[in-house]
């Protein structure tokens, strides 16, 4: 008898809102694409009206790990977007220090 184990994992949709005293709102969501592959979306609104849209698709052996990687990737890119405008990201973003970020 052929044994088949199918695991369905639903990845929770999360929403994060980031803001700092110097930055407009940036929001992100996580969306499940397929098993253990997760895409995290983020957008950052520059003060001049322009936007940076970030999409990070990550796969891992566990969905929890894929979700964490995707969210981390998205957050790092939002940090980069904030800094590219000369702003210091909010502590809630948990951005790496500039030296670590520029020389990963």
């Amino acid at each position: 008898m052929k044994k088949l184990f199918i695991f369905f994992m639903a990845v929770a949709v999360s929403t994060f809102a980031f803001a700092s005293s110097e930055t407009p709102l940036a929001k992100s969501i996580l969306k499940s694409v397929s098993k253990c592959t997760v895409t995290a979306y983020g957008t950052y609104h520059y003060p001049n009206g322009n936007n940076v849209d970030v999409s990070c698709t990550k796969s891992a052996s566990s969905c929890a790990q894929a979700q964490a990687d995707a969210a981390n990737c998205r957050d790092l890119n939002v940090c980069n977007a904030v800094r590219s405008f000369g702003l210091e990201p909010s502590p809630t973003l948990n951005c790496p220090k500039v030296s670590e970020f520029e020389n990963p």
Partner: protein
Amino acid sequence: MKNLVELLIIAILFFFPATKVSAFANGDSIIKVTYKRIYNNPPFPESVNVEYLIIDGNKSFFFFGEGKKGKDGKISARVTQLKDWSNQCLYFIGSMYPEYSLDSYWSDSLPAMKWTILNQFITINNNYCQKAVTTFRGRDYTAFYALNIPIQDGPLKFCGLPGLIVKISDSKEIFNYEMSNFEKIPNVYNLGIGKVYGDYNQFKRLFKKWHLRRLEKDKARREADPNCLDCGEGVTVGYTFIENLLD
């Protein structure tokens, strides 16, 4: 006598646009217009911000956030657009870090767009509005301006209509602004801008170079480490410009 009355009415109508701001804000009072900004670009998450337009005499200041209260009790904020009607000039923020800091500004025409006013009317938040359309630097916009608020202003660089812009969206409805409050208040603001480095054409030329350098840097990081968490495979960083700065 009848002719005199007619003449007076014509004179009032003729001079009314010239008094667009001062008729509403004078002395120590200002006009504070609150806009809700909705950025809607699926699949990216919708973001909603509150932004303000402060009209003080012949100048108006557009900015986001609540600002910071100084020791003198006045509120300061990072202005993103300043419209100075006294010299028909607009100034906008244009950081290109690190060469140009966040306090770098550039000048532009005032108004910077040409409108077509349509014979369509709608009431928005108790304001009787007329429709107008324009094409501005790569996007088509539809605006509704309040016939009962003869202030030729609006969010961002938008202005030049016979009334205050109450609502404006581009044709893809990615960028949306809608007025949520209009009030006359005492002037509690201390607003200004930093150094002006050049005009829009100079900004655009420099921005394009700066942006290309940014893309090249991202590419170099990807090539150096294909497994890089925030720049490797599966990672896309897109830029949605409200004005077409790259053509």
